[in-house]
């Protein structure tokens, strides 16, 4: 009897040896004449257990991890194909406590299905949302998204349904659905996991968006740093075409929707929606002045939906289960679930999808298990390189849009980067300015010049030149950038600097050369 074995093909799992494990498993199975079917699933997101190998047994999918190629022969010796016990046994994958307590809606299939198979996707509930959407009036689809309370998960948190309604209300003509897959924030990898682990949910979400607003063409703007995601998306798009879910007659309903992946080229600013549109048009990724909004005048001057990967991939769940079911999760104005990414110096890093309302402390300690180095956690940067550094005194803050805004932080794309007590916060502040200088598109002065001056001022502080005066100057510079920049890069790059000054001022002292 052929046994199905799962070894993730996710880039993160591959980065710690999943490819070598897959190779060793195939070779060992052949040597022992044990028939196996190897499925390259996505990652379940428990990266400290990767490479996580699963075997389909009568008792469900049993997990082993972290497995190295050197462990493979011993796994066969203990009859792991029939669920044999081994030092690396983790029991049923679903009952690993770290995974069991999660509320996976957007990520319900990630790590479970074969990301290259439409049939597997459909078997696990895929394309139910599209089927429902095709039976509804476009305005009703948009209303469902509005009622669900879904907000843009890329960082701006704008209500998705309102954006869609603006595009729907534009006169008929060429409209576009664009997916912003330029996931450039350090500490975030949820878009990548989703594109590699369940690309059809993104494809289905974009198709539903197209049908809802009357757009026939979609573009996924993918960052060049994600070659594995590119392959997964291209494979899935071709399979969806083949199965009749993309093309001139989507699901036999007589509607057209085409989808294409376009590669970015290593510019962080292209995660900003208007510079992404410039880049898609083949130009320098310089920010556009708004208005007009992209929903009115976007790609090639046409009405355009711009949404993040996670936002679009959540759409099928909302349609399949209903807006009320989705809005039933969460707190206050933060409805639904959020895929949070635990990153950096953390013992159990990975992806935690839970309803809004967990505290930072629960995430860092209950899920994360504290720092990887075992030293006290001193600071957490929430929401990417433009996000504030939160000190341990504020770890009881809830992870929702409003609660974080209340302490001068922001949720962004949901990444938490953990630092232990060895971190030098003045250096991190300097890095924030340096990063802004490297990535500024150059269009507006506060960002282009301000970031370079910011690096210089911090250098003077650390050299002991007029410390107090230069700290005041740095504070004023931050204020100028926040108030005067054209977009969020220059406008938010001061946030990590200001938070470092506020909470970790003792680090801004002169250094002995």
């Amino acid at each position: 009897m052929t046994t199905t074995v799962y070894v993730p093909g996710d880039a993160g799992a591959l980065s710690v040896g999943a490819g070598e494990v897959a190779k060793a498993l195939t070779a060992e199975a052949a040597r022992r004449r044990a028939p196996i079917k190897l499925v390259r699933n996505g990652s379940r997101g428990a990266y400290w257990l990767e490479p996580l190998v699963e075997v389909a047994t009568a008792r469900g999918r049993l997990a082993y991890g972290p497995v190295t190629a050197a462990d493979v022969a011993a796994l066969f010796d203990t009859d792991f194909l029939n669920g044999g016990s081994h030092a690396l046994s983790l029991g049923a994958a679903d009952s690993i406590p770290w995974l069991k307590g999660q509320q996976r809606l957007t990520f319900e299939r990630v790590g479970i299905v074969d990301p290259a198979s439409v049939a597997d996707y459909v078997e696990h509930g895929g394309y139910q949302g599209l089927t429902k959407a095709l039976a509804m009036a476009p305005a009703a689809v948009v209303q469902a998204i509005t009622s669900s309370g879904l907000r843009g998960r890329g960082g701006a948190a704008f209500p998705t349904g309102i954006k869609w309604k603006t595009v729907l209300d534009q006169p008929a003509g060429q409209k576009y659905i664009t997916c912003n897959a330029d996931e450039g924030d350090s500490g975030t990898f949820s878009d990548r996991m989703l594109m590699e682990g369940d690309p059809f949910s993104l494809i289905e979400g974009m198709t539903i968006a197209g049908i809802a607003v009357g757009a026939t063409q979609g573009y996924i703007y993918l960052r060049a740093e994600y070659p594995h995601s590119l392959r997964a998306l291209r494979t899935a798009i071709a399979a969806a075409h083949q199965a009749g879910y993309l093309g001139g007659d989507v699901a036999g309903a007589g509607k057209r929707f085409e989808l294409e992946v376009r590669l970015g080229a290593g510019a962080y600013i292209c995660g900003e929606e208007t510079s992404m549109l410039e880049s898609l048009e083949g130009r320098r990724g310089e920010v556009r002045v708004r208005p007009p909004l992209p929903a009115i005048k976007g790609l090639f001057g046409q009405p355009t939906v711009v949404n993040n990967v996670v936002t679009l991939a959540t759409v099928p769940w909302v349609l399949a289960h209903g807006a009320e079911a989705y809005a039933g999760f969460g707190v206050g104005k933060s409805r639904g679930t959020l895929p949070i990414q635990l990153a950096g110096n953390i013992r159990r890093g990975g992806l935690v999808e839970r309803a809004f309302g967990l505290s930072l402390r629960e995430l860092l300690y209950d899920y994360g298990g504290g720092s990887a180095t075992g030293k006290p956690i001193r600071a957490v940067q929430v929401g990417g390189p433009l996000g504030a550094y939160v000190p341990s005194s504020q770890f009881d803050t809830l992870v929702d849009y409003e609660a974080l805004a209340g302490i001068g932080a922001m949720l962004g794309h949901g990444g938490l980067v953990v630092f232990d007590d060895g971190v030098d916060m003045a250096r991190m502040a300097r890095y924030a300015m340096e990063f802004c200088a490297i990535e500024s598109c150059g269009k507006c002065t506060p960002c282009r010049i301000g970031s370079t001056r910011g690096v210089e001022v911090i250098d003077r502080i650390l050299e002991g030149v007029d410390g107090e005066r230069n700290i005041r100057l740095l504070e004023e510079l931050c204020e100028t950038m926040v108030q005067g920049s054209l977009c969020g890069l220059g406008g938010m790059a001061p946030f990590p600097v200001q938070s470092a000054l506020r909470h970790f001022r003792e680090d801004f002292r002169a250094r002995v050369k």
Partner: protein
Amino acid sequence: MDPLPPAESAVVRRIVADLKGRPGPLLEVLHAIQAALGFVPEGAVPLVAEGLNLSRAEVHGVVSFYHYFRHTRPGAHLVSLCQAESCQSMGAQALATHARRRLGIDFHQTTADGRFSLEPVYCLGNCACSPAVMIDGRLHGRVTPERFDALVADGAAAP
């Protein structure tokens, strides 16, 4: 500016001809050129400009805007070290110091024997397995200095 050798000119012209009909084709064209030649030579700029009916300045402006496009021929192996916050929290700066010393070059440089180019990169999306390194499109996580040496030794053994 040196004109392109005839073989490379032919490659660039073919790429432009293949892609010019697509909406907003310039980035697609530049990606295809870099995939074929390993970089975007300065001599390709006028050919692309002419083929897409753009000015040379426009094409140069786009090539120079994006960090991903290289202006010089890279080494046989491209080593990208993530230097963003998550990797910094797990020792990416010390790893960068080690890598510079091991390869004998700084960021944005290529070894004298043409084997390795070293580049910083700001996030590879592998932040739960920091620090991360990408070598020739292959991602590596939890990279210690010892593991870096082993990866580079593998690379040195490959063509």
